[in-house]
């Protein structure tokens, strides 16, 4: 009892502390009506003594614009509209005339300067609230020239943390399956659309990639040995090991948040049932016992609950249950086909795909069945949602130009971005968002 009280007080203290440091969260990224914020980014000032031979002045503003645009929360104001005289203006609050920026419609302003020689680089970044005329956050980074992109990404994390309460997800990847005729392999692509990497070469049908919570392994299903069996691949060594190969289906479904358990669907007992497998002792435990189809189990972020799909009520619908299989309760009632649940890392919300007017689209709903919202209205539909760390984005597949592609939207459904593909003949599916990785 005493322990509980102390724990609670600690949490309150941390909350107070963080709220004074970050003052306020500007953007409620989950609000359905959220509009992108207009932001101005000036060219950076050379505050050193060496000539700007690399044209870093434009490089910094270009990179900041590029990555801030990718976040989906900002509209970048065209430099042609700027009123400020760059020669006269400074990069600190004293050198900013906020009316120059409010009159062109900017809500936020980013300024910065750099000092570089051949190898070393120091750069400072500041973001201002134009409306309130104050500095939100400023940072100075010192490193080598090669690390300059890292500096940009780190400052973008600072901006997002201050404005949304969450860091960016430039340190994450999306794993997915790319199929060409009767062969499908697992690929990954970085959030910023770079580093498209082929991860498997199994020359088979390969499906349902799922990241381990440490981002080092991928749990998946493959017909490698003729039957849909479950495997785990170590991304660094590329070693693939078998998890289960029972008669019938062995569907890789989800990794528990603490990494100690795997959720699978096995049909070894004659029909599809949900199982949990301990990664340590290998023990297998059945969680469902129903003659209906039970598939797609996924853990809540605290590991206490499982959402899954069952057609036990006649059509496929989303259900939730406790992690031991008890307390099954139906979650979705709208529409006759709701599948593929994904639990937001923030808890509370579950994204899924549902049929509406003959198409599948992405929806989200509270884990108690409230606040049902349709997120996508794409002509090519929407399937297989997966949340980003922090819950700011959702990745899913949509048929664009006749082939399924990986797409990203903000969690409120806005700002669709289509990711690259290994080639025009490939159909992409089953995107799975990685945890935060050490990419920079």
């Amino acid at each position, binding site marked *: 009892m005493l322990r509980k009280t102390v724990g609670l007080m600690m949490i309150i203290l941390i909350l107070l502390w963080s709220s004074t440091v970050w003052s306020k969260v500007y953007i409620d990224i989950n609000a359905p009506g959220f509009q992108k914020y207009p932001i101005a980014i000036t060219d950076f000032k050379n505050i050193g003594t060496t000539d700007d031979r690399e044209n870093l002045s434009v490089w910094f503003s270009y990179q900041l614009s590029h990555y801030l645009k990718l976040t989906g929360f900002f509209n970048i104001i065209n430099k042609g509209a700027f009123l400020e005289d760059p020669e006269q203006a400074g990069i600190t609050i004293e050198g900013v005339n906020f009316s120059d920026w409010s009159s062109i419609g900017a809500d936020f302003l980013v300024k910065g300067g750099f000092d570089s020689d051949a190898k070393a680089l120091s750069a400072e970044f500041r973001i201002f609230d134009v409306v309130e005329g104050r500095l939100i956050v400023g940072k100075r980074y010192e490193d080598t020239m090669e690390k300059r992109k890292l500096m940009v990404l780190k400052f973008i994390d600072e901006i997002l943390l201050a404005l949304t309460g969450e860091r960016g997800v430039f340190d994450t990847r999306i794993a997915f399956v790319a199929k060409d005729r009767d062969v499908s392999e697992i690929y990954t692509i970085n959030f910023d659309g770079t580093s498209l990497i082929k991860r498997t070469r199994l020359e088979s049908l390969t499906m349902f990639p799922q990241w381990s919570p440490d981002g080092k392994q991928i749990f998946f299903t493959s017909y490698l040995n003729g039957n849909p069996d479950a495997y785990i691949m170590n991304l660094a060594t590329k070693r693939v090991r078998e998890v289960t190969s029972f008669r019938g289906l062995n*569907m890789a479904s989800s990794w528990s948040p603490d990494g100690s358990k795997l959720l699978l669907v096995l049909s070894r007992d004659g029909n599809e049932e949900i199982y949990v497998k301990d990664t340590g002792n290998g023990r297998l435990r059945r969680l469902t016992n129903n003659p209906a*189809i039970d598939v797609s189990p996924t853990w809540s972020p605290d590991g206490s609950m499982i959402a899954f799909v069952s057609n036990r009520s006649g059509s496929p619908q989303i259900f939730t249950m406790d992690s031991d299989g008890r307390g099954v309760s139906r979650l979705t009632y709208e529409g006759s*086909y709701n*599948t*593929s649940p994904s639990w937001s890392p923030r808890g509370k919300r579950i994204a899924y795909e549902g049929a509406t007017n003959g198409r*599948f689209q992405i929806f989200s709903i509270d884990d108690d069945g409230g606040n049902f919202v349709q997120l996508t209205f794409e002509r090519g539909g929407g399937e*297989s949602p997966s949340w980003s760390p922090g819950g700011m984005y959702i990745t899913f597949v949509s048929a664009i130009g006749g082939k399924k592609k990986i797409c990203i939207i903000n969690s409120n459904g806005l700002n669709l971005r289509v990711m690259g593909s290994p080639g025009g003949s490939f159909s992409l599916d089953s995107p799975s968002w990685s945890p935060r990785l050490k990419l920079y």
Partner: protein
Amino acid sequence: MKRNVWIVGSLAIVCAFVFMFAAGCAKTPVVKEEVALQEGESVIATAETAPAKVEEMVQPKEEAKKVVEDTSMKEKELWEQLLAEASNFKNKDIYFAFDRYDLNAKSRDNLTKVADWLLMHTEFEVTIEGHCDERGTTEYNLALGERRAEAAKAFIVNLGVDIGKVSTISYGEELPVDPAHNEAAWSKNRRDHFLVYPSKK
């Protein structure tokens, strides 16, 4: 409504058994001719083998060695024919409605033929592949494909086919016959596909 389905289903099973009984009582060549006629292509082959058999019967005994050669030739031809018949089941897919795995009258008809053939040719076995159209989740479709394959398996096992000679595999929505994105393609893709092949000894 549900009761009607049961009655129709039971009737179909009874009919199937009656058919099997009739087939079992009649002479084998008659049934074979029927199969050949249904397949269409093998009619000529059957017509050719029939008179050859008559000639064999009247072969003088001194030419026994030649006869052995002949019969082994005939056996080989017969075997080739069986393989062709087995392979022809690849063109006998059965189809399903969206998100359903119940067998319609046409499917049950088709499955009865598969079962009859397997009952007569016990040296063969079957793998039933369950497939779905592209709509819906890949996971759910993999399960649905399995249900479709299992439904066909249960039907032919009920007709007496040895359960050990029937295996199933689901490919979900992964291997469409028609990759187009319209109902015409989807209805072709929601299917069970039959691979009939000699049992490995």
